[in-house]
């Protein structure tokens, strides 16, 4: 097996709270399965399965439109250093991908929209959307009705977002290129649902990129919480009373996860944290403390997806509701 050298600080930090830590490290060293989602704007599940029968895709146990690819190689021992090499089919070169019948998407990344449950006809904000996997997933869940406001501030990333929205055939998406906090103020109090899939230190991507581990440092983690706190507050501001928000990251660091949710609860004490459950998907509860920081009890209802549990990237999820009857905007919110 190809052994990755995890930095000492990485092991010291995460062995403190990640259960089954050896299994976690082991899973983080295994290459990620290739997974895809059927795009129901363009084809049915059965049609995609018929067209891709040569690859024998296997359904994800917790999402009927999600599939993983079996390896091409016969020897399991070759898998460790194959990465996305010859042992995994290159889905990006399939006609089905080009035509938009499928969207190549990491399995855990399919979860935030499943938790948010956008409905047809609603107004939904995806505040940090590029490259668009979750925007296109939500657009399909809404059956190409209503409005998905899909935003990313980066000029280069927003081009990729538009390309994916086009390829997926999303007629209900308006793409914006704005600072997320400014957009949250502009649509304050009008959105049925909001997804804040925040930019993060992306520790989850270690499974698909050795460079992600090379770049890892505590200093990198420290760059993200301020923007994450701005975005989660902006997302909450955008919600209608009674609306729901999912905050998610593909990283493990508590500073980018439980601490950010705690920040929201301090700023908006009326915000409610819901219990996040997806039948068939194993998730662990949010932390109650980290370092010197103790988190409110509600933060325990957040969920962590660990790579050893479902053979995915690690992910963090929080389901947040704005109570009905909470319609007053404070002047400080809009500044």
């Amino acid at each position, binding site marked *: 097996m190809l052994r990755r050298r995890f930095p000492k600080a990485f092991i010291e930090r995460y062995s403190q709270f990640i259960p089954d830590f050896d299994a976690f490290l082991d899973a983080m060293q295994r290459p990620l399965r290739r997974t895809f989602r059927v795009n129901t704007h363009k084809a049915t599940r059965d049609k995609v399965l018929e067209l891709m029968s040569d690859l024998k895709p296997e359904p994800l146990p917790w999402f009927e439109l999600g599939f993983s690819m079996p390896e091409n190689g016969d020897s399991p021992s070759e898998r460790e250093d194959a990465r996305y090499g010859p042992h995994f089919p290159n889905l990006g070169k399939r*006609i089905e991908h080009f035509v938009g019948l499928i969207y190549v998407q990491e399995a855990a990344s399919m979860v935030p929209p499943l938790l948010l449950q956008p409905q047809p006809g609603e107004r939904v904000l995806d505040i940090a959307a590029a490259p668009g996997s979750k925007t296109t997933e939500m657009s399909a869940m809404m059956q190409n009705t209503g409005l998905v406001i899909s935003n990313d501030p980066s000029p280069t990333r927003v081009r990729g977002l538009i390309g994916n929205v086009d390829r997926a055939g999303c007629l209900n998406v*308006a793409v914006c290129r704005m600072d997320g906090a400014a957009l949250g103020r*502009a649509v304050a109090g009008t959105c049925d649902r909001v997804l804040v899939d925040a930019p993060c230190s992306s520790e989850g991507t270690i499974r698909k990129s050795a460079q992600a581990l090379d770049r890892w440092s505590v200093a990198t983690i420290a760059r993200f919480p301020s923007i994450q706190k701005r975005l989660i507050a902006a997302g909450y501001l955008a919600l209608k009373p009674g609306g729901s928000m999912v905050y998610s990251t593909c990283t493990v660091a508590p500073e980018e996860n439980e601490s950010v949710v705690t920040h929201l609860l301090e700023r908006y004490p009326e915000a409610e944290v819901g219990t996040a459950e997806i039948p068939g998907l194993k998730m662990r509860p949010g932390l109650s403390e980290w370092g010197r920081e103790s988190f409110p009890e509600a933060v325990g209802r957040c969920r962590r997806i660990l790579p050893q549990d479902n053979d995915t990237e690690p992910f963090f999820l929080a389901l947040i509701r704005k109570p009905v009857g909470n319609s007053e905007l404070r002047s400080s919110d809009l500044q």
Partner: protein
Amino acid sequence: MNRRIRELSARFGMPTDVLGRLEALEEQETVFVGTPEVMSFDAVRPMRRGIRFARIYPYSLKPTTFGMQVLGGQATRNLVELTDEQAKLLINGGSLNVKADVDNGFVLLKWQGLVVGVGFYKRPVLKSQIPRFRSVE
């Protein structure tokens, strides 16, 4: 109905109400199609509303591959059915010599019963108009 939509509906034998409850918008020599909520969203100015349906040129109207992938399923004429190999060739930017019962001009390319893109037919050459992002194998 937007006259550009009417023009394309006539060429491809699509119903006059091809858009259903969708709306069309002309901007920067392009026809966009999207939901009414997308078209009326005015809290900020989006970079893009819905998807590009057609490009407007001085003497022609060019349907887009992505627009036709979504709405071209209702087309009844000027369609060319492709084999797997023909589909890969055209998606990779190639051209074919084919005898097809279609008018010269823009045609819709179908593979496995699905519209995969737009071609330009000038008897007997069928040339791909599909945007090239990456090769398909």
